């Protein structure tokens, strides 16, 4: 590529040494315009970010302790949460949102080879999870979100905004 005559570079060099009035006013004008545009972009971004959401509360009652018998489970479709009462006597709650792309996993109580206690199967892309939410088969790479349930007046309470990482933290012994 042929280089252009170096007028532009010369002009720039001169301008740093000896700025004309026109260049000075131009620089002020461009800076002001740039700041106005940047401010406008920030405002638009903030505008697009809703401050009030019309979403359901994250904390809710999923079941009463007495109604959830050992070996049974409930599914709350609004929040997409499963709550289990394990035959070994403890409770736990898991998100039904597949960690791959967000479809709702289904509980398959018949299980598969090696996981007779039942598995979660995602209908969209076939991810499989153990009863405790660990990945058996991808494409999902992360375990299902685990919640620590609280007990309030005989009701099992889940807060979907608070997840726990380990199975031990998830388990609720009553």
């Amino acid at each position, binding site marked *: 590529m042929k280089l252009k005559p170096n007028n532009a570079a010369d002009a720039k060099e001169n301008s740093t040494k000896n700025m004309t009035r026109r260049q000075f006013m131009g620089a002020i004008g461009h800076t002001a315009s740039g700041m106005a545009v940047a401010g406008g972009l920030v405002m638009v971004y903030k505008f697009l*970010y809703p401050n009030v*959401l019309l979403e359901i509360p994250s904390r809710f009652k999923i079941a009463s302790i007495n109604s959830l018998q050992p070996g049974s489970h409930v599914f709350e479709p609004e929040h997409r949460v499963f709550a289990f009462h394990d035959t070994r006597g403890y409770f736990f709650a898991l998100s039904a949102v597949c960690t791959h792309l967000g479809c709702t996993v289904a509980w398959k109580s018949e299980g598969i080879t090696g996981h007779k206690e039942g598995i979660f199967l995602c209908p969209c892309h076939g991810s499989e999870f153990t009863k405790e939410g660990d990945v058996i088969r991808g494409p999902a790479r992360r375990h299902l979100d685990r919640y620590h349930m609280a007990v309030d007046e005989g009701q099992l309470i889940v807060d979907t905004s608070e997840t726990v990482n380990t199975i031990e933290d998830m388990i609720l012994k009553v």
Partner: protein
Amino acid sequence: MQSKPWRSVFRTALPIKTNLDRSLVMFNSLALHIQPVKVRERAIRFSYTFYLGMISFFLFMVLVVTGILLMLYYQPAIPNAYENMKDLQYVVSSGIFLRNLHRWAAHLMVISVFLHMLRVFFAGAYRPPREFNWVIGVLLLLLTLLLSYTGYLLPYDQLAYWAVTVGSNIVKYVPIIGKNIRFVLLGGNTIGEYTLVRFYVLHCVVLPLFITSLIALHFWRIRKDGGLY
């Protein structure tokens, strides 16, 4: 024909005799000047371009017309959206015809834009001086896909809801800012009222404005880069 009002609209003097007159007819008309004054004969043979670009543009015009008509019976709200879509199918005269026309034209446009891209690629029509028009073409393909994607949510049925759930979760995999993009796109953490309105505005206003501007630039550049190749 030579009256003053006529001459104020159509500048070219009649009768047309010379080649200069013929070229002036093209030059002096907004609609006709999209066509070049001269074309090589082989360039307008069907087997040369398969008219894929023009077919894409024609489908886009079908989508604009049917889309504007569908907008008259559609409210982007829950549960109105789904009910409006069902009303279009069963209550509104020719509603199902327009809806299907819109849907089929959208599918066909994706196909024809893609085939157009293949044609340009295999003809080598992306080479200089047409490199930038290839870039615009890629953006047009992207906009076509985004228009299809945003239109997908509007019926607000199970298919729409889960397709957009999956699609917006793909956005979440963008490094660092993925979760923010998804939040702004959906107007929340899950698909809801705000999402429907946002997708509606994108589908009916923002993306059509972008694609119309780029189509104009694309056509203009065909001429400036030396015509059909």
